[in-house]
């Protein structure tokens, strides 16, 4: 079916207000069953996926937006959001770097983003700019030789529907939560990874997502499957241009680790957090969950969260297989008026399952930062172990840090350890470093990086450097 006929079919079904702007190919704001059908049709999806979406949509309609997190924001009008936007050419996109906001370029400079990357990140029209459709993935040939599948989600729909049908929604059920249901109904694209039995993925898989068109909700879907004995490391990095509107982002990431396999998922998230006064910024409501299905499998989440106006995110592990291992390493920074409520869930089901949680929260300015964690040890999880360390660092006297750890243990053979601390970046620490010749800014970075050290150690090398720079930029001007 060509684009033209596709459009006319959709237009027929959806007569009122469906504007197909050739330039941007965007659905008008609003969400009902027709929109869900239109998305599925536009993407040429098989029947099972349409049903998946419709089921999710119907469930979503019966659900309410959750408000238990320690975040505060104006009500979101879900009917004011456009749920599909495939980029073609951008009329209003900057034509060259000269047209890009210098403040944004200065940030790239400080982050050490390579020149050729800057244009793409800043949304310059000359390059492949993308919205909901995934960027062309790289190194495909090398991966193909190893038998690794790494492609945009929409491509996997066409090439490997059987894998999707088997795994999609098997870790995060469509009705898991309000945002997961919404995502399941309207997701447009994302990434798909499958590592076959016994294969060690020959390179780190990385992808850049970014939010580009104004007022477009972003609903990515990521599915990563490591088959028996497979190993993969996946990097997700994000940057965003300066925008005034609040943008909703509700992604779902599902990880499946079969027997003896290992998945490492690293994120550096730097979406627009709003300006110094808290105006604008991304709302980030994400569901990330991995399931260690097989014995001795391992899933490790590492995240550095510095962006977004609101972060609501709890990458979790379900430890089903005996002797499986779950890890969560997190640095979450909130500055100015940012609000971050993040943490993890470790659900121990299998015998001798092990989990480690290291959470480092940093709050500066008027920001609020919360850690929310749940460790559940089921009766079946004999000999399970958990170690939790959650530390908060406050900068200035207007920032807030909260910790909400919950532990449920249903057997007597398990061991749980929990350490927590809250400290203030000390005048004395700053004075000490400055007395040794460091500027207040450098001293702050040094102290903060020290605080985050055992999380950064978990990041792949080049990501760790990026993360350190990011922290420096994020906390600029918060001390001294």
């Amino acid at each position, binding site marked *: 079916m060509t684009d033209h006929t596709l459009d006319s079919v959709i237009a027929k079904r959806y007569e009122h207000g469906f504007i197909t702007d050739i330039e941007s190919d965007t659905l008008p704001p609003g969400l009902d069953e027709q929109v869900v059908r239109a998305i599925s049709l536009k993407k040429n999806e098989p029947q099972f996926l349409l049903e998946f979406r419709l089921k999710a949509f119907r469930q979503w309609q019966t659900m309410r937006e959750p408000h238990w997190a320690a975040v505060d924001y104006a009500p979101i009008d879900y009917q004011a959001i456009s749920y599909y936007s495939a980029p073609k050419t951008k009329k209003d996109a900057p034509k060259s770097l000269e047209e890009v906001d210098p403040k944004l370029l200065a940030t790239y400079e400080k982050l050490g983003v390579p020149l050729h990357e800057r244009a793409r990140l800043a949304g310059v029209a000359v390059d492949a700019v993308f919205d909901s459709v995934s960027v062309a993935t790289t190194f495909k040939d090398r991966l193909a030789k190893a038998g690794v599948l790494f492609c945009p989600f929409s491509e996997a729909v066409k090439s490997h529907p059987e894998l999707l049908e088997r795994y999609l929604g098997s870790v995060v059920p469509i009705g898991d939560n309000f945002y997961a249901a919404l995502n399941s109904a309207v997701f447009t694209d994302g990434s798909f990874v499958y590592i076959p039995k016994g294969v060690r993925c020959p390179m780190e898989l990385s992808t850049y997502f970014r939010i580009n068109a104004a007022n477009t909700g972003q609903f990515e879907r990521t599915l990563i499957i490591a088959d028996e004995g497979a190993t993969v490391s996946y990097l997700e990095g994000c940057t965003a241009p300066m925008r005034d509107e609040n943008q909703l982002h509700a992604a779902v990431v599902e990880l499946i680790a079969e027997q003896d396999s290992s998945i490492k998922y690293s994120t550096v998230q730097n979406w627009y957090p709003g300006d110094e006064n808290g105006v604008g910024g991304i709302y980030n409501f994400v569901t990330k969950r991995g399931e260690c299905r097989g014995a001795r499998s391992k899933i490790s989440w590492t995240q550095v969260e510095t962006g977004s106006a609101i972060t609501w995110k709890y990458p979790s592990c379900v430890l089903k297989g005996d002797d499986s291992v779950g890890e969560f390493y997190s640095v979450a920074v909130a500055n100015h008026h940012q609000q971050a409520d993040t943490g993890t869930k470790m659900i121990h089901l299998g015998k001798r399952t092990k989990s480690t949680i290291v959470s480092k929260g940093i709050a500066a300015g008027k920001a609020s930062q919360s850690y929310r964690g749940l460790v559940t040890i089921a009766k079946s999880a004999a000999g399970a172990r958990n170690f939790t360390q959650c530390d908060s660092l406050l900068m200035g006297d207007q920032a807030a840090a909260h910790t909400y750890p919950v532990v449920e243990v249903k057997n007597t053979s398990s061991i749980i350890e929990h350490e927590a601390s809250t400290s203030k970046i000390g005048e004395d620490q700053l004075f000490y470093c*400055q*007395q*040794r*010749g*460091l500027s207040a800014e*450098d001293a702050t970075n*040094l*102290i903060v990086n*020290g605080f985050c050290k055992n999380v950064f150690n978990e990041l792949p090398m080049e990501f760790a450097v990026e993360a350190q720079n990011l922290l420096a930029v994020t906390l600029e001007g918060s001390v001294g």
Partner: protein
Amino acid sequence: MTTCLQIDNLHATVNGKPVLNGLSLHVGLGEVHAIMGPNGAGKSSLSQLLAGKPDYTVTSGSATFMGEDLLNLSIEERACRGLFLGFQYPIEIPGVSNIYLLKAAVNARRKQQGLPEVDAFDFLNLVKAHTEAMKMNDSFLNRGVNEGFSGGEKKRNEILQMLVLEPTLALLDETDSGLDIDALKVVAQGVNSARSPQRSIVLVTHYQRLLDYIVPDHVHVLAHGKIVHSGDASVARELEAKGYDWITETP
């Protein structure tokens, strides 16, 4: 002789409370001075103020360092010009390795002097030589700054930093407190090895004990926020014998 530190009639307050009341002091380059005095005399205030701690407000008087107005410089500018403070209570900085901070400090100073960053190999060799001299295990270098250090280890670490940074003026604030006799000897040896015609050292101490090992050129008695008595090393012995009362009774 070149003047290293010149303080004239310095008055200062902390939280509105006077801590220095007309203090004057002259330290020539290459000299070792000891400032002694009873608790609460203003000894630590003096060294912290000279290093630029923001809590202190200078209400009148002046201080110059190598001919330059010290009081208008930021903390790090003072440090990069060669002023070193050995802290009485060195603070812990978890997760930041000792060697990392040392290198950052050395490079900050080199940057100020227009020099390129120190060669990693040379730096390590230099640090290791000093670590040995201070009878510190190499593993110290990779531990977090003062993290879980004993009192004695913290003090030795301060002297190690001084040796590596090669300051023009070292203010050592109660470096002897909390040290057993063996550690005291090591610290004293470290300080003595740093004596040079190009370096002035000001020891701030309550006890005469340290001065048995580091013999100063001049000893000053600080009381009520100013120097009330000055002399040579014999003053310290006199204080040890007679206590402070005879010298500090009237403000």
